[in-house]
């Protein structure tokens, strides 16, 4: 990226906004702060914003409403921040078009990983080969919903996955019938959880196969490509 990435923090708590800004500055981002929706609108008119950190609870117009409004006209990546930290808010936020969600109190390391992942996905979406994000996808009777992070099998039974497994399967499904190397897959999925105990792509693939393949020993959906990586073999359609 040629120009410095510009992040707008919409957060009414001054210290949290400044602390986050200081940290992101150190990490090489240009950061602006808006304590409310009005300031946010003014700042967005003046400058190009690459990514927004949006607090859910704001004086005046709240985060959900802002998210809905921005999504109507803008594809800018949005990461929601909230102190409620519950599944319902996350699902609502993601359905309204936020790209990711982070519960307060967040760790700066996690924040950075999410920002990078969202930016990377945004950059990739510029290239048109990937499936549109946020839509439900279907393959061979299965349904994968990236917004609510849910997967249902052909009998409409919910199949539960860990975050990393879901990210990996989603990354594969969004790029069907393309060989993806382990590095590419790592790149596409690392944002969510980059910890010291991260499983290798191979381990995750093996776990996913256990959960979705009709016969995990003779995989049908996800095939190993010798010397290359992995490929999702099924036809994937947006639902």
């Amino acid at each position, binding site marked *: 990226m040629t120009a410095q990435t510009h992040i707008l923090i919409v957060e009414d708590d001054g210290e949290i906004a400044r602390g986050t800004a200081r940290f992101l500055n150190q990490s090489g981002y240009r950061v602006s702060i808006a304590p409310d929706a009005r300031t946010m609108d003014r700042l967005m008119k003046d400058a190009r914003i690459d990514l927004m950190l949006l607090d859910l609870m704001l004086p005046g117009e709240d985060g959900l409403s802002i998210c809905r409004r921005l999504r109507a006209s803008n594809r800018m990546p949005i990461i929601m921040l909230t102190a409620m930290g519950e599944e319902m808010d996350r699902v609502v936020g993601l359905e309204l078009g936020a790209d990711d969600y982070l519960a307060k109190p967040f760790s700066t390391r996690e924040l950075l990983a999410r920002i990078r992942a969202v930016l990377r996905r945004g950059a990739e979406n510029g290239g048109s080969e990937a499936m549109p994000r946020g839509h439900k996808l279907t393959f061979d009777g299965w349904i994968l919903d990236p917004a609510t992070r849910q997967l249902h099998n052909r009998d409409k039974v919910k199949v539960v996955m860990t975050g990393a497994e879901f990210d990996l399967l989603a990354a594969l499904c969004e790029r069907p019938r393309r060989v993806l190397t382990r590095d590419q897959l790592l790149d596409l999925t690392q944002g969510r*959880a980059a910890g010291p105990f991260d499983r290798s792509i191979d381990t995750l693939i093996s776990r996913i196969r256990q959960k979705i393949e009709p016969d995990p020993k003779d995989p049908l959906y996800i095939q190993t490509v010798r010397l290359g990586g992995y490929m999702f073999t099924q036809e994937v359609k947006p639902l």
Partner: protein
Amino acid sequence: MTTMSRLSPFNHSILLQVGTVLIICQILAHAGTFFFMVWRYERPDLLSATSVSTVQAIGFYEVLKRADPTERASLEKALSHSEIGLEVIKSDRLVVAPRGLLPGNAMLDGLEKAQPELLHAMSLVRRQAGPGGTPNADLIALSLGDGTALVFDPERDSTRLNLPRFVVPLAFTMLFVPLAVLSLWGARMLTAPLRRLAEAADRFAIDLDATPLAQQGPAEIRTLAHAFNAMKTRIRQLVESRSRMLAAVSHDLRTPLTRLRLRAEALADGEDKERTLRDVVAMDRMIGHALSYLRDQASPSARERVDLATLLESICDDFADTGRPASYHGPRNVVLDCEPDLMTRAISNLVDNALKFGHVAKVSLDTRSSAEVVIRVEDEGPGIPDEAKFMVFEPFSRGDEARGAPETEGFGLGLAIARQIVERHGGQITLHDRQPNGLCVQVVLPVRGRPPVRMPAVQVPSAPAMRTEQAKS
């Protein structure tokens, strides 16, 4: 049911009590009337002087005494063919009956008192044994003074109640059956509002949004219904304000916690930073637990069919991925009707607990029965002494302390949340000792989920709602 109410079967139901009292009162009243009537008509001495047969007999006696012989012959003939029970008999065919036997004796006494001028002619007699006679029947004879006597049988008195033997039981049955039915029906009418009240209380116990009780019926019941509705409103308000307050407190704690975390992260690496961050994480977890304990009680979330094996496996993998040794061993493709987010939270809490106290968590699944699944979470820790087992499921219990957990580890809500969720799914959660050491938490869940118990639909307010609350205050 308390011990008190077991003392008597009548304590079981007001319906029975009221019904019994009504029946007994009615029976006493009717029996009193009945027996008075019977007694009255069975007292010959009271009746004899005025009874029809006595009056007839005395009338005929006077006529016979004054009649000339030809008239007497035809009168005697007419009497012998009549049905009024008077007869002229030669005195030598009669024997004097012993006095002192009722009812003839009593009748004679009565008659003697009423007609003292006939005292000399009156006697209690029996027929001499012979064909056609009933030798033992007491008769009253009025001597006509010419070797004959006018005889009549007091038993033939048409005004006396000559009740056949079956009449008393029949009368009782005819009284008792309609009385019992009517009394029970009446008691039912009386207790119906109470029953409605009890049903409403029951509904309210599982559903805080149940419609208020209609204030109808007798005044006492209306007062009771009013008090009940007022209490219900008050409880609802308490539950709501408790939820709202804890949600607000939890939210407001997270904001300073976020500041604290950012400040700590800005510190140079070292023990202070480590420890501060650890406390921040612990506090955040406690807040999360408190919120979810309230929220799981309150919010209805959708049930769906879930592959339980993948749910358990994902929980274990999530722990394993952060370096904590949790593992799943069990069959694949086990479908369970449940609320997946809640079930994940319940089992996660059990696994977290096992790891905290027992170093490892081994999760297994048993599907031998077609009606239920059994999930076991086992650890290799010291276990829990029997006397503390019942305690650890209580919210805010200090069971954790007994097991040597540092105080910062939580509110002791983890197991309470797990139990709440399991019970909401119609299941049971129990603790068992594991051999040679360790604890086994066993969760039994019905495969076909029972319809969920409707918990009070008190929503922990969503973000915008809370903002409004704050703006107001």
